[in-house]
């Protein structure tokens, strides 16, 4: 079994061929996946249409559950968005080159998660036809945005993060779009020609590219942290029991990184299997992601423990009651499932044999994300169920409309991702080449040999395997 992050003997032409093959006509498995996503999306649209026509009643959005599954799902998707761009930026700055084969799809995951997350506040407020009221414009209706509210901060932060991470994804993709342009025909050629912005790979372009990418990475790290801190402020700045906790910002950031890493493992396994990218998405890289996930899981576990002890020793009776109710109340099974998936299951990641077992890691990653979804539910539901007024105590399980819309969000995300992997290269070709080049240099091998194509291989651009027939 290959024990290096990447096989440095791999030829550059093969890198192009292998990655560009993923853009060719899809196989049956792809259409099945699209079908499943469309099915889920149809469920979501059904739920939304029903909610739109009959009002918010079917969604059970009523006192005390003003925030419900929609907001839990919003936090889940915002969290999911964190690992892609944030980890990519951090690993880029510290020059960990093992990020190169996996960062592209992780960054795409960030963008699509944010696009999915952005739907939930809109769905949650109902009255879609009046959504423009939320914009800060002069209004004679006397409706003003409250700039002191973290909800407004949220809108600013999420918009900034979406714009920046989408640009980060796009800028990092430009050299690859030029490769696609040079190998494509028909509508794809026109699309890539426009998107590659005239990239030709000269030294001026590379020099500016290097600076730009580094500067953007530097900005994206504090931005990503600020986004989830601000999302946590939606809760922590209220005085509700269980929410008014100082450790919420780091807790949210750690949870976000955690769910993002778990999602990276899931997509890693799927892409590796589906596109047969064993040469790029190697077991050692998977192992590194798993180790990172375990480290973040332990941070998350610690922050849970510190939150519980802070509430316990804080002697705020209402908060303590909410905490105890999490342990043995109506949501106890969700809480303990969350703790098992979030804190116990990650120990499987410490065993090398399990880390190298791809089916096991796939299943584990799904359960880690289940735990993270439950975590978001446990943030929202118990506090609203057991707030200060016993008269309002009520348990929230979500109505069919909500569950349909939540399911629809997974379909929407999946569909965006599936379209992405067929239109854009989900592994960075030029960076994999760089990785191979530098690793080979480190191994003191002959540079000439790296770039030399095997004998007999076509040398003309048009004769190359790639996007023919696309």
């Amino acid at each position, binding site marked *: 079994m290959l024990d290096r992050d990447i096989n440095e003997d791999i030829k550059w032409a093969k890198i192009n061929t292998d990655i560009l093959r993923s853009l060719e006509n899809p196989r049956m498995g792809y259409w099945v996946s699209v079908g499943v996503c469309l099915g889920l999306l149809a469920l979501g649209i059904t739920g939304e249409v029903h909610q739109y026509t009959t009002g918010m009643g079917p969604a059970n959005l009523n006192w005390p559950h003003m925030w419900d599954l929609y907001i839990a799902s919003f936090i889940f998707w915002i969290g999911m968005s964190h690992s892609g761009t944030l980890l990519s930026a951090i690993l880029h700055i510290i020059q960990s080159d093992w990020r190169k084969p996996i960062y592209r799809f992780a960054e795409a995951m960030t963008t699509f998660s944010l696009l999915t997350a952005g739907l939930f506040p809109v769905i949650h407020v109902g009255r879609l036809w009046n959504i423009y009221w939320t914009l800060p414009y002069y209004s004679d209706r006397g409706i003003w945005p409250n700039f*002191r*509210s973290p909800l407004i901060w949220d809108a600013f932060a999420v918009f900034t993060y979406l714009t920046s991470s989408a640009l980060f994804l796009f800028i990092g993709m*430009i050299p690859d779009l030029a490769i696609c342009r040079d190998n494509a025909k028909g509508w794809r050629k026109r699309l890539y020609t426009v998107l590659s912005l*005239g990239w*030709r790979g*000269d030294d001026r372009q590379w020099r500016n590219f290097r600076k730009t990418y580094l500067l953007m990475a530097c900005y994206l790290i504090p931005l990503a942290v600020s986004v989830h801190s601000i999302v946590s402020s939606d809760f922590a700045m209220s005085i509700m029991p269980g929410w008014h906790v100082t450790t919420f910002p780091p807790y949210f950031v750690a949870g976000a990184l955690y769910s993002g890493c778990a999602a990276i493992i899931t997509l890693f396994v799927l892409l590796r299997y589906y596109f047969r990218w064993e040469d790029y998405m190697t077991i050692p890289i998977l192992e590194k992601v798993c180790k990172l996930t375990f480290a973040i899981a332990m941070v998350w576990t610690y922050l849970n423990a510190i939150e519980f002890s802070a509430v316990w020793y804080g002697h705020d009776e209402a908060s303590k009651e909410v905490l105890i109710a999490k342990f043995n109340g109506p949501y106890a099974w969700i809480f303990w499932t969350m703790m098992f998936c979030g804190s116990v299951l990650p120990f499987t990641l410490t065993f090398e044999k399990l880390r190298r077992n791809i089916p096991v890691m796939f299943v584990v990653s799904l359960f880690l994300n289940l735990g993270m979804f439950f975590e978001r539910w446990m943030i929202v539901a118990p506090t609203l169920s057991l707030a200060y007024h016993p008269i309002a105590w009520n348990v929230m399980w979500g109505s069919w409309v909500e569950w349909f819309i939540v399911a629809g969000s997974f379909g929407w995300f999946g569909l965006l991702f599936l379209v992405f992997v067929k239109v854009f290269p989900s592994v960075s070709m030029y960076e994999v080449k*760089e990785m191979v080049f530098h690793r080979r240099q480190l191994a003191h091998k002959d540079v000439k040999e790296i*770039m030399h194509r095997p004998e007999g291989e076509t040398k003309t651009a048009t004769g190359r395997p790639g996007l023919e027939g696309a």
Partner: protein
Amino acid sequence: MKKSRILGLFSNFDEAFNAISEIRLHKITGVSVNDVTVISPIEHPEIEEVLGERPSHVPKFTLTGACFGLTFGFLFLASAQATFLVQPQGGKAVIPLPSNIVLTYEMLILFSVLFTVAGFIIGARLLRKRRSLYSEMVTLDQVGIELEVEEKYIEPIKRLFKEHGVLEIREEVAR
């Protein structure tokens, strides 16, 4: 004087570097590394060893964006809040600094990133009509050296390229 463009394609960096080094040593009188553009499939910072350090102005755009975001962000918020004076403030400040700091920070980052991207597009001379001298092989695995020189230097450059194992040479009259 009539100028021409010439593009030599090499199979690896070492050969291309050696060819540029010779140009740097003024092996062809009248041609210098300032006339050279290297086109490569991957980022290659070492190229500055032979080409000399060439500036990038992207950080200046970033700094400008940060300053703009900081001032515009705060002024945008403050002006919006001042416009909304008709709403009851309940004794609180019309322009609340703590929340504005958070929002201004987000605007600072947003405009820094936008200006950085603008700086990149301008600095890298993107969105321009591509020159005709281009080979798709440079997005695969070859390194190109492009020079724009007077016609009389084309033959010596071709000889130099051939000495260093050039795979293909393309040339055209510069318009």
